Structures are given as structure tokens and as C-alpha cells.
């Protein structure tokens, strides 16, 4: 089992605030690593720090054994990291097709095959191919955001709260899609919905007050009622 991403003792400051105060975890190739924690624990900032959007002030992040801690965001993305932000970040005035083209960057055989795969996974995107991104429903935007991150040269996907604000039936679709995408890529997932996280995740990292509290196998956490109650408020 290869370690694709290693986050080691990362601290992040945003203005005068010390948000991340020691985050460490690893993402294993071909697995889904879930970051869990209460609201404001630092999960989203962790993803943004990996991508260089809120650069780390201390610690080290390596991706495929390359130190990416000090790289600019576009440089990090070009090493093979795709990002699905919490707000989906759809380009509203571009059509679905144009959104995909911006993400694809090239139209070689491998990229087109990836596009076909993802469109089969999210057939709604095919239906609304010529529709402006801003006119899509919340669920369709989420699908487009995931498709866009996948069709690039991504070896690792950082997905932030894909179930947020979606209807249960759409959450089910998104969850099935992530399970399918897992066969082709490695995923680091931030998710509040523990039922979804436990079904998708292979490993977990618990974050509290900007610090890694505990990491391990998801199956172990499912049966650990004490930890779930203490850090996630469930059980």
C-alpha cells in the first residue's frame, strides 16, 4: 500500500488566527480517507492548506514523495490534485460543456475516456451539456464539480462536504458515484454526514480544534461509541 499524500504536523495561520495547530494524516493510494470533526474543527482549512489556498506556516505536505508545502496552488493542482470545494465553485456563466473543457485542459484519448466515464456516472450532465452552470440545481452543480475535478490530471481528489444541502436521494447518487470513482482515484473526503462517511471511507482522521486527535480504520470507528460521542456528538 503506497502513501500518496502525507500531511505532517501542519500549522496554518489565517491573518492573526492560528487555525491548524498540528494536522497529520496519510492518504493511501486507492482508498478513501475521511476527515471528521465538528463544525469549525479545521477540516476545510486542511483541504485548502493541502492545495495551497491557505498556505501552511509550519509542517510538511508531500504528494507522491514531492514536497508541495511551498508550491503555489496552480503548481500543486498540476502535480495531480483535484479539488471539489464546499460551495462547488461552478463557473456560472459557462455552460456545463465549457466548465468541463476548462477543467480538461487537453483532449487526448485518456482525458476523453475519463470524460466519458464521468458522464456515464452523472448522466444529468449530458442532458444539460449546453446549459449554463448557474442554471443547474444544487445536486447537478455538485455532480459537475466532482466531474470537473475528476477529468483533470487528478491522482488525488479532495472533496469537501459533497452531501451539504442536498436532498437524500441526491446524496445517495453522489455516494454511489464516489464509491465508483474510488476504483480509479484516491480520495480525501471531508464529510459531516457520518452515515455517508462510514459507508465510503476506508480510513478516518479525527480533527478537533485544528489538531489531529486520532486516526485509524473506519471499521474501528464505527464500533467506537465513546469516540463518536465525544468528538462527533453522535452515538
Amino acid at each position, binding site marked *: 500500500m503506497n502513501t500518496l499524500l502525507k500531511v505532517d504536523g501542519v500549522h496554518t495561520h489565517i491573518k492573526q488566527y492560528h487555525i491548524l495547530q498540528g494536522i497529520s494524516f496519510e492518504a493511501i493510494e486507492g482508498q478513501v480517507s475521511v476527515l471528521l470533526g465538528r463544525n469549525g474543527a479545521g477540516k476545510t482549512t486542511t483541504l485548502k492548506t493541502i*492545495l495551497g*489556498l491557505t498556505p501552511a506556516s509550519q509542517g510538511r505536505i508531500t504528494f507522491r514523495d514531492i514536497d508541495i508545502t511551498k508550491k*503555489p*496552488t*496552480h503548481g500543486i*493542482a*498540476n502535480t495531480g490534485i483535484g*479539488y471539489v*470545494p464546499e460551495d462547488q*465553485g461552478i*463557473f*456560472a*456563466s*459557462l*455552460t456545463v460543456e*465549457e466548465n468541463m*473543457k*476548462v*477543467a480538461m*485542459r487537453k483532449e487526448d484519448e485518456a482525458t476523453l475516456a475519463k470524460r466519458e466515464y464521468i458522464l456515464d456516472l452523472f448522466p444529468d450532465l449530458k442532458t444539460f451539456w*449546453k446549459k*449554463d452552470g448557474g*442554471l443547474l440545481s444544487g445536486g447537478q452543480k455538485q455532480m459537475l464539480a466532482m466531474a*470537473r475535478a475528476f477529468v*483533470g*490530471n487528478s491522482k488525488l481528489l479532495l472533496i469537501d462536504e459533497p452531501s451539504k444541502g442536498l436532498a437524500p436521494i441526491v446524496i445517495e447518487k453522489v455516494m454511489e458515484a464516489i464509491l465508483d470513482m474510488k476504483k480509479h482515484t484516491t480520495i480525501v473526503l471531508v464529510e459531516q454526514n457520518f452515515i455517508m462517511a462510514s459507508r465510503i471511507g476506508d480510513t478516518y482522521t479525527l480533527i478537533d480544534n485544528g489538531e489531529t486527535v486520532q486516526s485509524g480504520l473506519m471499521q474501528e470507528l464505527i464500533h467506537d461509541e465513546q469516540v463518536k460521542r465525544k468528538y462527533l456528538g453522535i452515538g
Partner: protein
Amino acid sequence: MTSKYQWNNIFLSIMVIALFIFPFVTDSRTWTILLTQIFIFSILAMSYDILLGYTGIVSFGHAMFFGMGAYTTAVMLDRIEPTIGVFVLSIATGMLITGIISFIVGLLTLRLKSHFFAMLTLALSGLFLVLAEKWRSVTSGNDGFTFRAPEFFKDRMMFYLVVLVCMVVVYFVLRRFVQSPLGHVLVAVRENEQRTKSLGYNTLHYKVIASVVAGVVASLAGSLYAISLRFVNTSVLTMDITLDALLMTIIGGVGTLIGPIIGAGVIELSQHFLSGLAKDYPIFERWIIFFGILYILVVIFFPSGIVGTIRQAFHKRKKQSVGKEEQSNSEEL
């Protein structure tokens, strides 16, 4: 994207045909000159739309590129000879100079956050204005200088037609540019720069490209403007030119290309008519006040500009009809 431009194409085709026929059916010198001015400012406003509408860059220094084009053409025609060849060469030289300067300026300034960038472009524009005022041996300072235009342009109608063709060509070239993959990246930068970076794009490069394209097109507008007046002074480098371009773009509708053309028409025509009313009604000697009221009304009733508001209404209708369709589908299910 094609459907988005369908109405533009129809509207533009009708307008171009009408404008092309116009000088053959009327001999009004005033209207020929006024329309020529509108075409020139349409080119300038379209160039500004590439910055503001498509890339989300607010620049207060756009006049420097317009002024560079105007001075290059004026100086070359004055110092070499007033022929069509020199005129074409002066346009190319102006574009080259502005291309290089906008590249350097863009590279140095576009890293800054939007408001700091806007202030810096204002300062740089001021710098070029002072340079033109002080470099009297070439520019004749504030007083400016007159020069002879090529013989071909002595006939106002010929110049009118040349400028009309330039405007149409610029429109189609810029439309092709914004519809290209590069144009889509510019729109992505405008909508969400961080997200564009996280897709692997070095957004600075794309913003610099937009700045160079806008600068080069503004230079063309400046060259034509100088020819239309057969005179140039430092007013071509002042903030007023940038503000005109900004207002034309905002009133017409940012990010639409056709909007700046309409905006240029609205502003130039209202300036002409409001100042003309002063002959009969003394209150219109203060026509700039009415001009201000017009701006306020347009901003209130067309917050996204004339074309932008029409498009929004169209989208709203489309969204409602899609919503109804989806609702009836789900009821059927």
C-alpha cells in the same frame, strides 16, 4: 454559446447593413462625424470589456493605451508622411508599443489585489500623462499639434466606412477570442480566481494576456481617434477617456461585447443632444448634470447594463419554463 450570440448576430447584421448604407442616403456631416466617434469609442469600450467584463479587472489606466495609439499615429503621420502606408504602419507600431508596455505593466501590477491594481494603473496612467506633457519636442505638450491625414481620409465618408469596418472586425475578433478556450479561462478567472488556480491555471498569465489584448485594441481606437480629429494633445491620456470607456461598458452591459457598442452609442448621442439643447434652453448649458441623472437612471433600471438586463430577463424566463417542465415531469412520475 452559439444561442447566446444568436440575437447579437441578428441585431448586429441589421445595424451594420443600416450603418453601411447610411452615408449613401444622407449627406449630413454632423451625423457622419458623430457616428464615426461612436464607432471609435465602441472599439475602446469593447477593449475595456475584455478587462472588466471577461476577466474582472478594473483598470483606471486604460487611457494610456488609447493615448499611445493616438500619439504614435499622429507623430508618424506628422514626421514621416501622411500616406495610407504610414497610417497602417503607425497603427501596427502603436499596437506593438502598447502590446509591450501592457505586458510589462500587467506583469508588474496584476499580482496585486483588485483595488491596489486599480490605484496603480491610475498612477501609471498619470505618469504617462506627465511624460507626454513634458516631452514637448515630440508631443508639443498640453497644446498638442495638428497633422495632415492621408488623402484617402479627406473624404469623411471613406473614413466613416473604414472605422465601421474596423469596429465590426474588432467585434468578431474579440468574440472569437472570448469564445476560445482561452476566453473561457478568462471568464473562469473573473468568476472565481481561486477555483481557477485550483484547476491548475496560473491565473496571472491569463490576466496578462487579457491586459495585452485590451491594450492593443485600445491603441487601435486611439489611432483612429487621432485621425478623426487630425489633432492630438494630452487629453487622450486623461482619466476622462478611461471613465468614458468604463461608463460605456457598464451602461451597455459588462461581459457582453455588444453592450459596450450600445453604451458608446447611448453616451455619445446623449452628450450630443443634451449639449445641443443649450441653444434653446439655457438650463442645458449645465448639460453634464442631466448627463449624471441619465447615468443614475440607467444604473437603477438596468443594473447589469442594457444588454445584461435584457439577457437576465431572458434567462429568468428560460429558468421558469425549465422549472415548470421539471415540475410537470415529476408530477407525471
